[in-house]
């Protein structure tokens, strides 16, 4: 009877396409919006991901997320180094500074100052030049997207193309001269500000005069040392907050989840996709069953048991579900591929696929359930009613 069920479904072209459209739409919207949502969420901690080396981040206990800088006394660096199980420590300066472009306009940049000797925390990928070039006088490394965009030199003539910032160009950061010695690629951050790398000591000369300039202490654990235990020890010894990179990512993400409306908006879009998909697919599927109710009645009269009918309807909804899911996820992937090189945040991890598969399965089950209820309750005697 499985074959009868499939033929029934596919034979009713218009309804079948309607059901598919509903399910495709639902899985497309859920997958795509969830991927954008997740893309944005991973952006919130993009800088933590970019710095692969540190196992543990040490910071002021009041810090809530990566962009929430509350500087420490520089002596904290040595106190952390003294904790048992610490292999190395590196200072990190992170601050928003004003860069002055050649035409005199200002652009806020995120300045990252790396440990002068080890340069730990450098960009994940160099496009031009070497990280080592930071040791050259006044050297900075600029993120390539900004170099071509926000930090590019405006066109000399009206309507002309801006000239990208190149290696060898100079710019002024907080009235201090800086020379571009390299271009790098960094993960897009939530605010999408240009990122400029330099050494810690140079960053402190750029930064406005403040008593405290140490933003984070980056820590590498000795091999074999448990990171959770080590961060607990650092906390106990220094009174500072110490988080593993993963904990810090989650913390950052949670902060954005809690305090910005953007994730909520995407959550609503996902929910809407789910609801609309449920309504369209559920409705058309239920309608499909209703329209075939005489056929189901005839099958019932002719001796088809409720168990078999249930299996037939489940099969119909699962078939429609898998095809709709396939098309929807395919379209979402195509969307992701097409927008790959744009500003759009789009990440489709396995759990988004699993979650949308689960959602589509739920929609199918729900619509099947409605139909099954109808068919199980159906009196076969209706077949003789004209």
């Amino acid at each position, binding site marked *: 009877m499985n074959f009868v069920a499939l033929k029934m479904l596919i*034979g009713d072209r218009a309804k079948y396409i309607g059901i598919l459209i509903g399910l495709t739409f639902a899985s497309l919207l859920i997958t795509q919006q969830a991927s954008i949502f997740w893309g944005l969420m991973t952006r919130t901690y993009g800088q933590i991901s970019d710095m692969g080396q540190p196992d543990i981040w040490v910071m002021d206990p009041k810090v809530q997320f990566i962009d929430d800088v509350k500087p420490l006394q520089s002596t904290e660096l040595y106190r952390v180094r003294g904790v048992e199980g610490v292999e190395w420590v590196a200072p990190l300066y992170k601050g928003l500074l004003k860069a002055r472009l050649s035409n005199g306009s200002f652009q806020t940049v995120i300045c990252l100052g790396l440990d002068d000797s080890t340069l730990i925390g450098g960009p994940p990928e160099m496009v031009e030049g070497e990280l080592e070039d930071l040791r050259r006088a006044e050297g900075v490394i600029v993120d390539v997207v900004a170099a071509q965009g926000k930090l590019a030199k405006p066109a000399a003539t009206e309507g002309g193309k801006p000239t990208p910032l190149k290696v060898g160009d100079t710019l002024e950061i907080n009235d201090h001269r800086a020379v571009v010695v390299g271009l790098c690629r960094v993960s897009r951050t939530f605010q999408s500000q240009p990122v400029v790398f330099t050494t810690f000591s140079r960053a402190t000369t750029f930064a406005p005069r403040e008593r405290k300039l140490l933003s984070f202490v980056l820590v590498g654990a000795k091999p074999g040392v448990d990171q959770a235990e080590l961060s607990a020890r650092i906390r106990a010894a220094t009174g500072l907050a110490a988080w593993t990179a993963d904990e810090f990512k989650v913390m950052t993400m949670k902060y954005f989840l809690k305090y910005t409306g953007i994730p909520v908006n995407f959550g609503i879009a996902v929910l809407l996709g789910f609801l609309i998909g449920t309504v369209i697919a559920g409705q058309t599927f239920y309608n499909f069953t209703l329209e075939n109710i005489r056929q189901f009645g005839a099958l019932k009269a*002719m001796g088809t048991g409720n168990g078999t009918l249930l299996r037939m309807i489940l099969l119909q909804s699962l078939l429609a579900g898998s095809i709709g899911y396939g098309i929807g996820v395919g379209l979402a992937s195509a969307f992701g591929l097409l927008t790959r090189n744009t500003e759009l945040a789009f990440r489709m991890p396995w759990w988004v696929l699993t979650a949308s598969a689960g959602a589509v399965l739920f929609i199918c089950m729900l619509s099947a359930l409605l139909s099954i209820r109808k068919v199980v309750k159906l009196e076969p*005697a209706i077949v*003789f009613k*004209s």
Partner: protein
Amino acid sequence: MTVATADAVVCRGITKVYGSGPDAVPALRGIDLDVKSGELMMLVGPSGCGKTTLISVIAGILDQDEGTCHVFGEDVKQLGARAKTAFRGRTVGFVFQAYNLLPALNAAENVAVPLLIQGVKRKEAVDRAREVLERVDLGHRWRSLPSQLSGGQQQRVAIGRALVHDPKLIVCDEPTSALDQETGHKVMEILRAVAVGPGRSLVIVTHDARVFEFADRIAKMNDGRVERVVTSAKELR
């Protein structure tokens, strides 16, 4: 005339009331009726007299309120839901006024449905269905969808479907009323020729006097009762 032997259907004191309270409609008011094995019995009578209700009880798709209906020795009402469904699948063939073919299946697949319900493999079921289609003169149209067939042809497919699993009882509700006279006649001829046989009974509801000639016996109903049972349409006048 086929020789009618032991009783295939034995109805005693069957009543059926639809609804309850002030809306109650008594459809059957105490039916006694026997259908013999190997006979073609017609149920006739004015609209609303309870023909469809009675045939539904006999076919095991509707439970009577009172009385008993034995079909080939089985008290159908007393069977559990599952057993009743299985009983219908094995024992009863159906022909409906509106054909009720599955529009997505071709003629052979439609005929094969009762076999598929009983778990016969698809290939074997369709092969057997094609043989049955030969018997209703539609062997060459086995691939056609119902929408590609005329009303008479669709009803012949439905007759094939009612026969394919060799049931002992075939019930038909108004099998010819959607067809013109000539086609209806042809359909009845085929039904009579292929469906009636030793060990198989037909119960046909009809108000179409032109097909009365095909009956072995005719039960004339009125207002929920069987008024009389006759062997020839002439006696009804």
